[in-house]
């Protein structure tokens, strides 16, 4: 769980603080974890935020907070409250400002030279007293301070505070590498991301011994909480990747192999860059899987035949491209790999899909992805989900091994029932005959839809207007849900033939597939048919290079197949035999001037 996915900064700090200071009982029976917090800065607020951060990891915190500055006493006295508490983990949180005090107190150059090593020994002395008892101990490095004193030369000398802290951090890394149960919380990285000038707030240190501006305490707390959760076995192993607008720009089903943005110009190059990053995550041990709403052959075509693809088919352990809902597909991927859902990170540019997966499969990690591909990498890194415990030879070859395993698995996809989720979207649709102000958009939709397009007649705007004037049934649909307005997403032009309604053109945007819009529209067509006193609906499917997706559409609605050859099928269903489909979509109230209300 994530208590405040939509919050950041001070607001996030406030809400984590509130949750942490009024922890409920462990009513959900979460696994408990005993954590002792030692700090050489004010520990109170960090303790509360840490409680919340541990809760976010699905663990229930039992915290023992030592008084400010008593770390050495707690460590070396076997009867101290920390030892008596019998913690599973110790978080030993240290402030750069304390190091700075010692640096400024040094009286001779030689004292400053040796400070990094001496200070490290003190930190390790405390840490080792817990490590020796088998307690997982989290220590931190320091953000690089602003006090450089020599300008650019500062990094080259331990006579600058900046250079001195840099040396300390280096020694700390070496020491931690030799200690199995010792974990590094990388404050330096957190402060880099925030900007050191933002991270530190001298007023807060001077007044109340806050180690950083309070809005960054959530970063420190989450860092420690993730290390704890990782030690408890919560490790992500699989990256499940969307394709369209995630690994390349555009929609391959509509735009075609040559039409997608990948390589070529700056925009396409940004996707290549992201692919390179993903590949580096595979090399560090992640299993890659694809979960895309596409025809499999179309999606695979990019991997096999697009010259700019960085990720190859052989890099993907499980490749799922179909039109089922993504939650079911992710469950399928987990089963094929025989890994838990909680080891999966799902990467998708669509807020709809992310929300669907979060809601249907709360165990799956679903980081928010920003709008722009150039920000994807930073978003993944900042999500904190890519926590690892080490690097082994197996990590480098894991992806290939799982690919072989997955190929042996022949399990079939199981369809999930997602009605509950769809209802929660609060979808509202507005179906109406064509309106003059919508004509340009209708014409555009007809021109651009390739996949959900039955006959690909490409009716022009003039032809649409003519049908409307002739009194034929025309349908345009606008859709919105709680996430926002999709605008005009479907259009149909019908023609009265004898006593039947013939669907001459019917296109829909693939963005809204599988949410009940199709059902709603077919209901609507039969409604119109009945209103006009007609007997039935005739449909036709004309094969194009891209519309395989709707080849079985009429069969799904139990139309009778009246003709079929390789490139064409005709369908008929009478009004009286049509069974109205249930959907989770409501009718929209329309205010013409303001769009869908």
């Amino acid at each position: 769980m994530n208590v405040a996915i939509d919050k950041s900064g001070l607001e996030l700090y406030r809400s984590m603080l509130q949750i942490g200071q009024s922890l409920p009982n462990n009513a959900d029976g979460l696994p408990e974890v005993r954590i002792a917090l030692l700090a050489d800065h004010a520990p109170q607020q960090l303790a509360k935020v840490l409680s919340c951060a541990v809760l976010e990891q699905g663990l229930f915190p039992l915290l023992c907070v030592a008084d400010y500055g008593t770390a050495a006493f707690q460590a070396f006295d076997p009867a101290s409250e920390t030892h008596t508490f019998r913690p599973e983990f110790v978080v030993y949180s240290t402030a750069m400002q304390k190091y700075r005090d010692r640096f400024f107190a040094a009286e001779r150059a030689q004292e400053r030279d040796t400070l990094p090593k001496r200070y490290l020994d003190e930190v390790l002395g405390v840490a080792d007293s817990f490590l020796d008892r088998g307690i997982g101990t989290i220590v931190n490095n320091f953000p690089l301070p602003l006090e450089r004193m020599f300008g650019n030369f500062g990094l080259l000398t331990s006579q600058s505070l900046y250079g001195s802290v840099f040396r300390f951090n280096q020694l700390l890394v070496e020491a931690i590498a030799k200690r199995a149960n010792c974990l590094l919380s990388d404050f330096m990285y957190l402060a880099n991301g925030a900007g050191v000038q933002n991270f530190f707030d001298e007023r807060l240190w001077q007044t109340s011994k806050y180690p950083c501006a309070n809005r960054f305490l959530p970063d420190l707390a989450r860092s420690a909480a993730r290390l704890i959760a990782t030690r408890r076995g919560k490790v992500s192993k699989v990256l499940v990747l969307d394709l369209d607008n995630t690994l390349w720009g555009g929609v391959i089903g509509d735009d075609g192999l040559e039409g997608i943005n990948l390589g070529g110009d700056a925009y396409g190059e940004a996707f290549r860059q992201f692919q390179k990053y993903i590949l580096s995550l595979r090399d560090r041990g992640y299993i890659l899987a694809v979960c895309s709403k596409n025809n499999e052959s179309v999606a695979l075509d990019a991997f096999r035949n697009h010259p700019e693809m960085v990720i190859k088919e052989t890099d993907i352990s499980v490749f799922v491209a179909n039109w089922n809902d993504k939650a079911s597909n992710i469950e399928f991927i987990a089963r094929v790999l025989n890994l838990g859902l909680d080891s999966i990170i799902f990467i998708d540019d669509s807020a709809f899909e992310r929300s669907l997966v979060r809601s249907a499969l709360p165990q799956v990690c679903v980081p928010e992805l920003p709008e722009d591909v150039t920000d994807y990498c930073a978003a993944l890194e900042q999500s904190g989900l890519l926590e690892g415990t080490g690097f082994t030879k197996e990590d480098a070859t894991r992806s290939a091994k799982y690919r072989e395993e997955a190929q042996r698995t022949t399990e079939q996809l199981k369809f999930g029932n997602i009605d509950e989720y769809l209802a929660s979207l609060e979808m509202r649709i507005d179906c109406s005959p064509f309106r003059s102000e919508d004509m340009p958009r209708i014409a555009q939709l007809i021109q651009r839809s390739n996949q959900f397009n039955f006959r690909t007649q490409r009716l022009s705007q003039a032809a649409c207007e003519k049908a409307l004037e002739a009194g034929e049934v025309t349908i345009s649909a606008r859709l919105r849900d709680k996430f926002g307005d999709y605008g005009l997403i479907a259009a149909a032009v019908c023609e009265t033939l004898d006593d039947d309604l013939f669907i001459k053109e019917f296109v829909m945007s693939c963005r809204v597939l599988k949410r009940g819009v199709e059902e709603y529209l077919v209901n609507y067509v039969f409604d119109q048919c009945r209103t006009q006193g007609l007997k039935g609906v005739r449909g036709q499917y004309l094969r194009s290079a891209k519309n395989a997706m709707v080849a079985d559409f009429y069969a799904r609605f139990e139309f009778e197949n009246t003709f079929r050859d390789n490139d064409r099928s005709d369908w008929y269903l009478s009004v009286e035999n049509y069974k109205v489909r249930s959907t989770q979509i409501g009718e929209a109230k329309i205010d013409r001037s303001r769009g869908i209300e």
Partner: protein
Amino acid sequence: MTDQEVLNDLTPLFREIFRDDAITLKRETTAADVERWDSLTHIDMIMMVEAHFGIRVPTRVVAQMKAVGDLVHVIQSRLK
């Protein structure tokens, strides 16, 4: 902003930070009048005030603030 306008803005912030819906602020209100107003919550309060008014409270006031009136004065002078 008048004294009262600033105090009206501050009141909900104080109520949230110090978790007491009965807090009514005057210029004379001091930490002694408010339960849970300690050096740490003091900082949290100052940070909330900064974010709310889009100002920076100088160290002198953070460290030496005697009563709410000091804060009101800073807010008024920074907002000018």
